[in-house]
């Protein structure tokens, strides 16, 4: 079993109102020193019966095709075995 941890974030330059709102809310709650907050997605994809290389290839494909939208998002992933 392989677990792929996929991180999808908004591209730099794309406005992230959610991050901005969270930042404001943290400030209101009295947390000083928060310079910036960005909100993205964190997905865990569990794969069965594939090798590590194969998994890496497939997850790359999944990100390209579905999990991220290249117009607005970047992605990154890590694999974890066991």
């Amino acid at each position, binding site marked *: 079993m392989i677990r792929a941890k996929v991180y999808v974030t908004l591209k730099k330059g*794309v*406005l992230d*109102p959610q991050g901005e*709102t969270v930042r404001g809310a943290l400030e209101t709650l009295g947390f000083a020193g928060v310079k910036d907050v960005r909100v993205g997605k964190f997905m865990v994809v569990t794969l069965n019966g594939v090798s590590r290389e194969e998994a890496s290839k497939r997850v790359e494909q999944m990100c390209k*095709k*579905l999990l991220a*939208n290249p*117009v*607005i998002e970047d992605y990154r992933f890590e694999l974890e075995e066991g």
Partner: protein
Amino acid sequence: MRFGIIVFPGSNCELDCQWVVERVLGQQADLIWHKEKDLKDYDCLILPGGFAHGDYLRTGAIARFSPVMKAVERHAEDGGLILGICNGFQVLCEAGLLPGALLRNTSLAFICRHVHVRVENTATPFTTACRPGQVLRVPINHNEGRYYVDPETLRQLNEKGQVILRYATTGGEITDGANPNGSLDNIAGVCNEGRNVLGLMPHPERAAEALLGSTSGLLLFESIVRSGRTASPMSR
């Protein structure tokens, strides 16, 4: 004229579009389940509003892989008309049939209300019944309507007259205050280069009967019917 309305699992405006096309315009409109693969019989396809696949992951992201989308692409390539409303617009962007993407409203809130949009280009099959600069009163109904493209594409869109609708004041001014969702340049609707594919966030089908408060959305449908009448059947 024959309309085909594509129904994805989670779409919900298909019956409304059908109502307007059939009852108000007197044209034919069939509902097409997303697993169909043949769309040859249709002059104009409508991708209606709703929450295809629950809008999970990203709006329109999963719907673009529905079996029917291959035929939708072919229809576009062949010059057939395609109207993507709200969720339909989002699907068309994800599918690459229209440039850009639709992001979460800057208010982070779902918005359902009437807005005003200005018609920026009347030389498309979707807008011939409008006057240049005409202001339409139509409802929006979305959580992800903030239009975004990279600056270079934006420049091209403007240059080629692909921006069809912009959020405006009642008087037709393009202001920040008139922009309900933070869309780049107040963009509410864009078409492809071939001008046969239009995507827009407002719901023209909700502004097609006086009883419901506005009829200005009807102009888009009437334009389509009119272009269907003038286009020779061979042009496709």
